[in-house]
């Protein structure tokens, strides 16, 4: 794995984190005050920042950082997540998503927008945070970090501090990045007194390792002081008794020496003294036996006023500030010392364990383990299984042809094989199935943006977002759905004043639901707006020559007029929905997915768009039929029942129309062979079979075919790649005998029979 692959993973992860962020913010918006929700939101932004930092994506890092800071205020209860606050955060989440996309795909972001949001976020973080504490705290240690050396002068050498007792003990409280005191860095020899406390060992540090590290800096001599080692019977094996005095010559500077002890600085007494050259070795031998120089800040406890006062008199004001920081550190040390007592420690860890257990219980509802697989691999697998299904069908067929009695063991084995194949296929399809949640979440953003532009107040409610459907369906769903949402908000919902006047709440609701119904996924988009203005639609249709002025249309038929090409009800083309894309395009893209779309509307109460889509685009259960010598496949989901028409049940209607009476109701009879131009005249219905089909929004039709061959699961092979879209035909498949069969597009055939037959026929003729 190289960095590019990891970067790819990072962007994938960003997408997940962004989804997590958005859903968390929406939950907060709905009044969820679970701290874990806030934590999850914070972590999402934090994670993006962390990864972005590693890849040097500075724009992303700086925005995420501001965002994170504000979220931290919410997390620490300094900022109440009100609707106003969350509005800013949701917008920020959108900008974060934009920045992520730009980082991945290039392009540019709306600088003004992100700058504006940074200002808003910063205002939120500042406005609500307690002013003094949070602002002053981080500043103080920073000032110290910048110049570690002067602190040294302020630090005491002996437990009893007096104005003559200062020694240059540098002590940094943060990163060692600052400039060094000139006088120090010039000198290459240092004396180091290092006295570990027992805490150093309990935190997993090891004096030996530190000294080993030190030895890598240069030539050094080392003396171990074992004076405080008690007799064996009084020895506490956990305690720290040794201290070391080291003289080292190095050109790496004091920085390097100190950074060796970076991790141990709180848990030891450390004194680093820069020596005049030549003096180092002298002092090392001078001091034996070595007096460990105590640098225990806890000694300052309670006596803080004394050294502070002295320092202030002696040094400049700058030094005084640093002493304050030192005092802070001192209190930290004291606190840690207090914690070191065993009873306290074990009590604390017991509490931690209890907390951990709590967490574990909470997490028991977490997702089952998953693995990530390249989509290509899944697709390859699906293709192979498709071939397997075809192959198995061919094998079955040839066995049946050669084995007339049908009870041989080969036959039984074949049946088992068929079942297994079917199960494999279902399982493979399940791999591709994904919840519609990501698409629904994207819609939330669309709603926000349009609500902003139109000045309407809109709430998006989603339901059934965990409903699963094939990934290819999901991918192709986003575009039509976005357009429909735009329409719903722009045309469907009224302005707040109008809503209030109509006795509705000022806030409009757009509801998006998904559910499984009889082997398909049904997605419903409803709004509580004004509904379709049928008079207007009708007039428009007449103006556009879509219908005759005196046409007698049902409400349903009028509503469905909006799916006609070039139809738009908005008086003027608006910014949003008038991008040259009409509902006809939406309908076509849904149909391209093998789906159907339907509208129902109640004036004053809003509209409902219902889309029904296949769960997968890879296989379908079909009825294999013969029409004019051609083999066709009719999707089983469309078929309500099949029947053998009786001559008495057939009634002529007009010049060419025929109706069939089924259980006392009439249903138009459609000759598939005629519609598809397989034959010039209509076949005799009594000689064929009628398939009663239900089409979306169009009621029932009886499709006439010549004969039924059987029912089969077929693998869908797209025709569009090679032949473009063929009206009336959804796709093709390969049958068990190796022949190609076309899959009928039932809806197209039904609507063709309803009056668009000319258009269909002419295009078919042109195609032929």
């Amino acid at each position, binding site marked *: 794995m190289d960095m590019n692959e990891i970067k790819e993973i990072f962007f994938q992860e960003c997408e997940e984190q962004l989804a997590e962020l958005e859903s968390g913010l929406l939950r907060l918006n709905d009044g969820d005050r679970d701290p874990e929700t806030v934590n999850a939101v914070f972590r999402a932004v*934090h994670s993006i920042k*962390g990864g972005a930092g590693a890849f040097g994506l500075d724009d992303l890092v700086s925005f995420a950082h501001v965002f994170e800071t504000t979220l931290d205020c919410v997390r620490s209860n300094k900022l109440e997540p009100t609707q106003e606050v969350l509005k800013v955060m949701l917008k920020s989440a959108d900008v974060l998503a934009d920045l992520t996309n730009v980082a991945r795909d290039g392009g540019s972001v709306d600088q003004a927008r992100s700058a504006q949001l940074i200002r808003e976020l910063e205002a939120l973080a500042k406005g609500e945070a307690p002013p003094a504490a949070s602002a002053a705290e981080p500043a103080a*240690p920073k000032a110290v970090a910048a110049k570690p050396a002067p602190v040294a002068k302020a630090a005491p050498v002996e437990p009893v501090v007096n104005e003559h007792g200062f020694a240059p003990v540098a002590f940094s409280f943060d990163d060692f990045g600052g400039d060094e005191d000139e006088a120090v860095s010039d000198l290459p020899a240092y004396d180091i007194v290092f006295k570990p406390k027992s805490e150093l060992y309990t935190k997993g540090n090891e004096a030996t390792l530190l000294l080993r590290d030190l030895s890598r800096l240069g030539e050094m001599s080392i003396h171990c002081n074992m004076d405080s080692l008690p007799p064996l019977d009084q020895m506490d094996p956990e305690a720290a008794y040794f201290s070391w005095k080291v003289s080292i010559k190095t050109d790496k500077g004091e920085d390097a020496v100190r950074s060796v002890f970076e991790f141990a600085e709180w848990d030891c007494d450390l004194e680093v003294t820069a020596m005049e050259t030549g003096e180092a070795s002298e002092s090392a031998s001078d001091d034996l036996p070595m007096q460990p120089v105590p640098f225990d800040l806890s000694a300052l406890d309670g006596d803080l006023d004394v050294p502070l006062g002295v320092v202030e008199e002696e040094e400049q004001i700058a030094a005084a500030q640093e002493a304050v920081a030192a005092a802070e550190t001192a209190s930290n040390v004291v606190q840690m010392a207090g914690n070191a007592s065993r009873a306290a420690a074990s009590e604390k*860890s017991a509490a931690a364990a209890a907390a951990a257990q709590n967490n574990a219980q909470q997490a028991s509802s977490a997702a089952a383990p998953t693995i990530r697989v390249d989509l290509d691999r899944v697709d390859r697998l699906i293709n192979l299984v498709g071939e397997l299904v075809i192959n198995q069908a061919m094998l079955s067929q040839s066995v049946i042809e050669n084995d007339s009695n049908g009870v041989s063991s080969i036959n039984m084995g074949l049946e088992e094989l068929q079942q297994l194949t079917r199960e494999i296929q279902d399982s493979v399809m399940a791999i591709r199935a994904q919840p519609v949640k990501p698409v629904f979440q994207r819609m939330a953003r669309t709603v926000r943006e349009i609500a902003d532009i139109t000045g309407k107040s809109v709430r998006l409610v989603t339901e059934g977002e965990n409903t699963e459907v094939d990934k290819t369906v999901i991918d192709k769903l986003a575009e039509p759905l976005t357009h429909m949402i735009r329409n719903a908000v722009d045309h469907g919902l009224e302005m707040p004043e109008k809503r209030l006047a109509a006795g509705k709440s000022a806030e409009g609701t757009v509801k998006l639901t998904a559910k499984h119904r009889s082997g398909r996924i049904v997605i419903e988009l409803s709004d509580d707006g004004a509904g379709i203005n049928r008079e207007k639609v009708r007039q428009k249709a007449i103006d556009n020559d879509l219908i005759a002025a005196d046409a007698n249309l049902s409400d349903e038929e009028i509503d469905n007029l909006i799916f006609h090409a070039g139809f738009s009800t908005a008086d003027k083309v608006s910014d949003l929905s008038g991008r040259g894309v009409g509902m006809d395009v939406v309908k076509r893209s849904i149909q391209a997915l093998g789906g159907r779309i339907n509208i129902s509307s109640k004036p004053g109460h809003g509209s409902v768009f219902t889309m029904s889509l296949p769960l997968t685009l890879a296989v379908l259960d079909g009825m294999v039929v013969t029409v004019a010598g051609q083999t066709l496949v009719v999707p089983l989901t469309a078929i309500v029942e099949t029947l053998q028409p009786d001559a008495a049940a057939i009634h002529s209607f007009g010049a060419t129309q025929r109706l069939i009476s089924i259980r006392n109701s009439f249903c138009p009879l459609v000759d598939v062979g005629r519609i598809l131009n397989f034959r010039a005249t209509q076949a005799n219905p009594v000689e064929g079979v009628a398939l009663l089909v239900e089409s979306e929004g169009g009621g029932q039709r009886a499709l006439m075919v010549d004969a039924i061959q059987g029912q089969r699961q077929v693998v869908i092979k797209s025709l569009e790649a090679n032949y473009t879209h063929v009206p009336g035909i959804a796709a093709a498949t390969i049958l068990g005998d190796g022949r190609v069969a076309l899959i009928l597009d039932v809806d197209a055939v039904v609507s063709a029979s309803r009056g668009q037959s000319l258009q269909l026929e002419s295009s078919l003729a042109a195609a032929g």
Partner: protein
Amino acid sequence: MKKKVLTVDDSRTIRNMLLVTLNNAGFETIQAEDGIEGLEVLEDANPDVIVTDINMPRLDGFGFIEGVRKNEKFRAIPILVLTTESDAEKKNRARQAGATGWIVKPFDPTKLIDAIERVTA
């Protein structure tokens, strides 16, 4: 023998970076996605050093470190905190929980390896 590192981080990106960096540097790497999983795999993994994030779901880095220190077998194992939190307060909390040292993100392979070398024998 290869040194074993247990890394605990909820970010897939960082996990992969750690994996690549550590493997390239000749370490054996075991990975966990949060504090709970970290504690679960601790015994079996039997690492020489632990690198952990702070902000994690289920059980954060502080809780994880306390959990490790409570285990008699691992109470002295070096634990490095890998986090973007460079402010003193968080660092101090990690230390109180028992962290040995820290590495400040953005992730830098050299810094990471240096820190690990520093705390392991």
